[in-house]
């Protein structure tokens, strides 16, 4: 069933597409045209490679093929503005003596340009995610649509609209200036983390497609690490994703119920991923640029220890709460303090959250409240909190678990 040439094309598609596309966009100055031409080049590879053999340097072959297809398309399409200029530049590139050798640094820059363009803050978040997966990941529009549970034409329109905005509004194809860079890097990391979370946390949809999203996010994380190795949070996010992903197989039991770390079967954890994650975390810490991903990765690293160091976890949540003061972080901090310093100390932090209207219908808050009250010996209070949590739970398996805990009081 495995056809070596088809495999080579598929591999080239996965490994080379982003780099080929990124450079061609710079040359033709048009996202859509470049993408169409790269598509043409892959179609050409599918017919040519079985006949002539797989080229020694598939990336270089695809670069040349895509450029020639772009020239053909530009010659046919008379509506493109400054068409003559672009054509002349492409033809000049094509006639260079060693046209295939793009310097490594230029390739790095082109891929960075592509990332920053796809994650530009003037694009809608859903469009950033879709465009990043389409341009830098190896996913088709159909696969992205299935992963995000929308119809394929809807996703297609979203991507077309984003590309049109890039062209019409002239979203620049460049690496942001130094003073804008930290903010823009954060924006890129947010897109990648969102892709990972969509694959990791969502409970609906095709499991395989969702795993593909986690893999794509990690691949993007590895690419960012290669392109921006001096950014602490790039390593921090990679560490966080690897440490979460290492437990993918152990997260759900046979009935589909999500398991807390301490309930998971550790033999199902991926030790290699954990080691990779810990190494990335170490690199991140050594760069001395603490950030939310590094802190979350450090917390996860402590939580997967056989006997977690709760006081340190509580401290890290405290630091995280300073950086990202969200109610969910506060809740996690209260739970950690409850383990570190006892249930009363946890309750002291959790009780004020009960007045937050945004959290009134947040089931985990009430479940954690019940847990702490139970451990503090307040059975009636714990029962009331469990009942509240059960009422808010939208998931039958989760509800059954909460009912079991209520009965056990």
């Amino acid at each position, binding site marked *: 069933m495995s056809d070596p040439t088809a495999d080579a094309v598929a591999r080239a598609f996965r490994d080379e597409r982003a780099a080929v596309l990124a450079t061609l966009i710079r040359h033709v100055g048009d996202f859509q045209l470049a993408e169409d031409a790269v598509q043409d080049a892959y179609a050409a590879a599918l017919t040519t490679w079985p006949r002539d053999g797989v080229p020694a340097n598939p990336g270089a072959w695809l670069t040349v093929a895509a450029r020639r297809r772009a020239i053909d398309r530009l010659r046919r399409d008379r509506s493109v*503005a400054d068409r003559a200029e672009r054509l002349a530049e492409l033809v000049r590139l094509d006639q260079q003596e060693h046209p295939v050798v793009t310097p490594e640094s230029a390739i790095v820059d082109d891929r960075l340009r592509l990332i920053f363009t796809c994650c*530009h*803050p*003037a*694009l*809608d978040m859903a*469009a950033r995610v879709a465009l990043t997966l389409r341009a830098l990941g190896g996913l088709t529009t159909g696969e992205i649509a299935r992963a995000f549970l929308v119809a394929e034409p809807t996703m297609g329109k979203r991507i077309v*609209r984003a590309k*049109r*905005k890039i062209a*019409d*509004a*002239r*979203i*620049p194809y460049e690496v*942001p200036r130094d003073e*804008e860079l930290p903010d823009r890097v954060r924006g890129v990391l947010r897109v990648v983390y969102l892709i990972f979370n969509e694959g990791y946390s969502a409970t609906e949809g095709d499991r395989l497609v969702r795993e593909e999203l986690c893999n794509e996010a990690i691949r993007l994380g590895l690419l960012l690490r290669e392109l921006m190795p001096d950014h602490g949070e790039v390593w921090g996010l990679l560490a966080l994703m690897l440490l979460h992903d290492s437990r993918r197989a152990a997260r759900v039991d046979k009935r589909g119920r999500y398991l807390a770390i301490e309930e998971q079967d550790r033999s199902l954890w991926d030790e290699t991923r954990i080691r990779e994650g810990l190494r990335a975390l170490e690199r991140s810490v050594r760069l001395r640029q603490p950030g939310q991903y590094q802190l979350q990765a450090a917390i996860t690293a402590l939580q997967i220890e056989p006997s977690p160091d709760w006081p340190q976890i509580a401290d890290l949540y405290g630091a995280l709460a300073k950086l990202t003061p969200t109610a969910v972080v506060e809740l996690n901090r209260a739970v950690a303090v409850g383990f570190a310093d006892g249930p009363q100390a946890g309750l002291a932090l959790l009780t004020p959250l009960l007045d937050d209207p945004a959290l009134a219908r947040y089931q985990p808050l009430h479940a954690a409240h019940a847990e702490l009250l139970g451990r503090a010996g307040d059975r009636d209070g714990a029962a009331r909190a469990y009942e509240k949590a059960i009422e808010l739970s939208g998931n039958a398996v989760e509800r059954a678990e909460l009912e079991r805990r209520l009965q056990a009081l």
Partner: protein
Amino acid sequence: MAQYMLLLYANEVEGEELAEREADLPIWTELTKSLEEAGLLVASGRLHRTTSATTVSAMSGETELTDGPFAITKEALAGYYLIEADNLDEALNVARRVPLIRYGHVEVRPLMDLDLE
């Protein structure tokens, strides 16, 4: 003489309907030229469709970008800048400096490259 701003509104169409409207091009060109010749035209332009818009606001204290046009109707159009910029980032940097964003919105829309010849 006073200056007046004429604001042009229309629903956005595509395909055949758009082609029908484009057939008016000679009328547009004639209007623009005659205003120019009479010395009455300050500036005019055609905007790209609203999907190309980015809205800038800092009402929450931090500057926020939104993909798309400004949509709340109780705020009224209060003024305009027509600027030159190399790309959207530069245009957005100008928008960030407009004091109105602390209590209102600035919609940044690219103009089309018009070739009236």
